[in-house]
């Protein structure tokens, strides 16, 4: 679904072109910014009341609660920006528990001098992402810091949703025989950001995969609530998520080497920069561990959702080599896929 009317929405008329320290001081200028930039985009019944807190209904049962802070540089990258990333990131963290994400809070830290045009663009893409995910922004906060105290803007989002009673997803639930399903191609987000960084002389066609995955999760739960474990492999990539699973459940993970999908242009960028896609961040992919007997139905349901159309079974859980993720190479050898060490950097050797 697209919201062209939102994207073409012009910048409201404000008394300043750029964010001033006074915009964070709680006076007239703060109100102007809230009224013209934030409220029209995020409006709902709760936010409208403009109270110091959101008062929300509690349907009972378990709550999945998550928080994340976004500092990505550059703030605009092919396929997305820090705004939709901030919404989708927390939506996905909640959704990975099987919960339906319901409510979000948003906290902005703005650098003095940030053009309102930039802020407005980001808020528009947050609006769009929140609508797509069907989540309400019910609380917010803005601080302005001195120039140089932050880089353009940082965003924190926190949120929660309600976990269905019959769903029990946990990294410690893996058992031998389970199948590992990946919802699509790896490394799109990380490479989109890396190839746009200044200095790399790239004309990249790689686009971030940033997307909310809660509808995909819903489709999966409709097949069966028996998902054992689920993560969205962001920082540290798929290798990190799988190592965490293997460690928490004390089982081995065996990957079928050549089944892991990577888009051609992403692979091109990885090859030339010497980066392994298994370690690169994704922002619109999930990896699910499901019992073998429901794996095929789950896969079929995922393929019917746009965010899971490239889903594939990439491996299985084994009681061999507990705690270790291994990958079968084309030659039939089995190599260890370890946790990454630190930041992935372009290398020449």
């Amino acid at each position, binding site marked *: 679904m697209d919201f062209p009317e939102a994207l073409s929405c012009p910048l409201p008329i404000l008394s300043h072109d750029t964010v001033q320290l006074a915009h964070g001081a709680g006076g007239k200028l703060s109100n102007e910014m809230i009224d013209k930039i934030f409220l029209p985009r995020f409006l709902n019944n709760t936010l409208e009341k403009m109270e110091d807190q959101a008062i929300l209904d509690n349907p009972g049962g378990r709550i999945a609660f998550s928080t994340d802070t976004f500092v990505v540089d550059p703030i605009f990258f092919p396929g997305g920006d820090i705004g939709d990333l901030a919404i989708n990131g927390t939506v996905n963290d909640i959704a990975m528990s099987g919960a339906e994400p319901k409510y979000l809070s948003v906290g902005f830290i703005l650098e003095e001098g940030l053009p309102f045009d930039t802020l407005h663009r980001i808020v528009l893409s947050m609006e769009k992402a929140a609508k797509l995910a069907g989540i309400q922004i019910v609380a917010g906060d803005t601080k302005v810091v001195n120039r140089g105290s932050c880089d353009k803007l940082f965003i924190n989002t926190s949120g929660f949703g309600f976990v269905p009673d019959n769903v029990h997803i946990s990294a410690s639930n893996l058992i031998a025989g389970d199948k590992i399903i990946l919802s699509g191609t790896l490394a799109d987000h990380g*490479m989109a950001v890396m*190839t746009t960084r200044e200095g*790399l*002389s*790239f*004309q*990249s*066609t*790689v686009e971030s995969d940033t997307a909310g995955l809660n509808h995909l999760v819903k489709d999966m739960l409709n097949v069966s609530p028996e998902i054992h474990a689920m993560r969205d492999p962001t920082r540290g990539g798929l290798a990190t998520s799988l190592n965490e699973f293997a460690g928490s459940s004390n089982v081995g993970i065996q990957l079928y080497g050549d089944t892991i999908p990577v*888009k*051609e*242009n*992403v*692979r*091109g*960028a990885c*090859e*030339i920069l*010497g980066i392994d896609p298994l370690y690169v961040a994704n922002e619109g992919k999930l990896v699910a561990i499901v019992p073998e007997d429901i794996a095929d139905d789950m896969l079929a349901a995922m393929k019917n959702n746009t965010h899971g159309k490239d889903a594939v079974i990439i491996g299985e859980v084994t009681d061999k080599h507990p705690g270790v993720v291994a990958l079968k190479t084309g030659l039939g050898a089995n190599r260890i896929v370890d946790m990454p060490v630190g930041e992935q950097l372009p*290398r*020449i*050797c």
Partner: protein
Amino acid sequence: MCLAIPGKLLEIFDENGLKMGNIDFAGSVSKACLEYVPEIEIGHYTIVHAGFALSVLNEEEAKNSFDAWDDLIDRANAEGIEMEKLERPD
């Protein structure tokens, strides 16, 4: 040492007096210096290391390797071992 992979030259331009080119690596396009491959033409494949094209790929020699390896497979098939031939680049 020396990560270098083949890409296809898309265009040639000048930058600060150096002959430069945009090289396509399966859809990701990276800039490289062409000063060391004066013979290169658009459409050629070249090996790029740290932003420098170092050699124009000899397509004839690449084909020779494929042919030699195809022979391996023919022999294997003759011995009754089923093997598929590899797909060649066009």
